[in-house]
């Protein structure tokens, strides 16, 4: 694990994943981009007004027989709501994403080979797109999203306001996928899974529950 000093307050900022290039200082909420061994402050993350999620940085869970830990979060907003994308690390340095939206949870992983992914112009709801290893899945919805909050460490510079087009896909047997058309095209494939099956630990406390 790499520990660097926050360029604003000097507190330790931990990097558990080598692929993380962005972090938010948990003390002063300064967001910083990592250049090898240096952190460059790029702004401050404003606090979230309402944040009723059972997860937090440090929550652990199980997926596919492997234990993972949440190390960062991206909260995005679209016209009709919000969702959370929790950055996870498992085993040595396998990173993934736990998506949390409208009570549904999905675990997905970024693909390296995105040659089969069509350009955004050709994508419409209902279209079938082949995303290995899940195979063909159907475009469920497409949303213009922007980042409204981030914390912990992330593999991309997720400043508030960062915009992208997020395309969600579903397939049989709880398969899912996401294509994010931003500065770069990022593709994720995984599965929906029920809350219980994740065997979460170190969840956040929610008042009254």
């Amino acid at each position, binding site marked *: 694990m790499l520990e660097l000093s926050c360029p604003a307050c000097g507190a330790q900022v931990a990097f558990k994943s080598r692929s993380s290039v962005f972090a938010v200082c948990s003390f002063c909420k300064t967001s910083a981009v990592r250049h090898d061994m240096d952190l460059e402050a790029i702004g401050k993350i404003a606090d979230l007004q*309402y944040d009723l999620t059972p997860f937090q940085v440090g929550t652990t869970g199980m997926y596919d027989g492997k234990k993972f830990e949440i190390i960062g979060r991206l909260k995005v907003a679209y016209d009709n709501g*919000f969702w959370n994308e929790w950055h996870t690390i498992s085993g040595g340095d396998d990173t993934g994403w736990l998506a949390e939206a409208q*009570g*549904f949870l999905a675990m997905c992983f970024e693909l390296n080979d995105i040659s089969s992914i069509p350009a955004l112009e050709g994508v419409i709801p209902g279209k079938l797109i082949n995303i290995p290893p899940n195979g063909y899945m159907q475009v469920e919805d497409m949303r213009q999203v922007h980042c409204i909050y981030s914390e912990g460490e992330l593999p991309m510079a997720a400043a508030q306001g960062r915009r992208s087009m997020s395309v969600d896909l*579903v397939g049989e047997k709880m398969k899912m996928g996401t294509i994010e058309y931003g500065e770069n095209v990022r593709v994720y494939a995984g599965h929906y899974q029920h809350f219980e099956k994740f065997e979460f630990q170190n969840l956040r406390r*929610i008042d*009254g529950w």
Partner: protein
Amino acid sequence: MAGSHDTPEIPNPFRKPKPEVKVPKGNVTTFSCGKCGGPVDVRYPGHSLSTVCPSCNSVIDTSNESFAVIATYYKQLTVHPRIELGTRGELMGKTWEVIGFVVRQDLASSFKWEEYLLFNPFHGYRWLTCNNGHWNFVTMIKDRPDRVASYANLEGDKYKIFYQGKASVFFVLGEFYWKVAVGEEVQMADYILPPYALSVEEDGTQRVWSKSEYITPNVIKDAFKVDDDSIATPIGVAPNQPSAATKTWNKVAPMWALFLVILTVLQITHLFLTTHSVVYDQPIAYTTRQEGAIDPTGGKAEQFTTPEFVITKNNSNVEVKINTDLDNSWLYVYGELVNSETDETFSFDRSIEYYHGYEGGESWSEGGTSSTVLIDSVPAGTYFINLETDNGATGPANRHQYQLTLTSDIGTFGNYLWCFFFLSIIPIFVWFKSRAIEVARWSDSDYSPYVSSS
């Protein structure tokens, strides 16, 4: 998750119309309705995107702090939810809070049903639906059931189509994870496999599948501590209401079929194994009564004893067949099958009569010219038969004869038919009961398999 400094967990569930609103503290945000100025609570800000003002029923955008009024509807009309919003209950092993209430209607029939939005911050959203007093626990699913003809298939189960139509939102109260709108229309279809059902809703941009499970009103009452007045007695049979009779029938039917097959195989084997040996077959003469004779038996009975014959199969049955040449007359036969070694006697008697004629342009006939008697469990041995006959022939005395045939070890159907009958009483009863329920279940469906017979 409950910690020591939690505020009281359960709000007062017996909230009557327009009471003090009591909800668990912690997340609740209160603001003034942009339409009427009344206080509006949002229990789950950040999750709930729209909230209905309890005073004027305006729908308010709660996705941000501007709390804009999205729509104002039905100021006058109020449908009171059976379970008060804010009530928490234990259902399916988890705690749920009722946060939203929707009344929807089928556009074709205007039939209305209620839906309660349940929320648990860890487990997300569920629905409770109340339809004709029948309740369902509904979970949205990400699986995509396969729709083939009139079925939807999910995880190897076949759900049969029950309803297809358009539904619209008629009334809303509470808070929702989307921007709810009265009048919102969706295309719906329900597929059933009691106690489960699959439903699909499409609104042009999304298709949402959900799986329902039937739950009894008592479960709702207990879970949410609702008083009896609020939970109506269910009417009729719900689409996915489990039927004990149907369940029993589904179990009994294959067993019944199996037993009938076994029984029939046994019967066929029995028929094959019987030897059908004719042990005696002779004509026996008798004299018709003199004209004017009065007493049918008085000394006029004619007696005859057959020669001895042998029955080889032990304890088998013996069929006695009497075949006569009666013609507008009767013959009475009394017989004794006697074992000549042990004197064991099996007696039998038969009245045979046959009349016929032509009257008013029509032929008629009555009775028959032959009869059989079956004697069970006759030991092997040497036998003879004592016979006594009397007859009702009139006219001049005349010699007639009848053919007496004894067949040992014949195949019978009696046991088979009795077993068949007793084995079938319960299955047939169950079938009738099950069918009555199924007919009632499907009576509201356009896809009833019973429609031609009802």
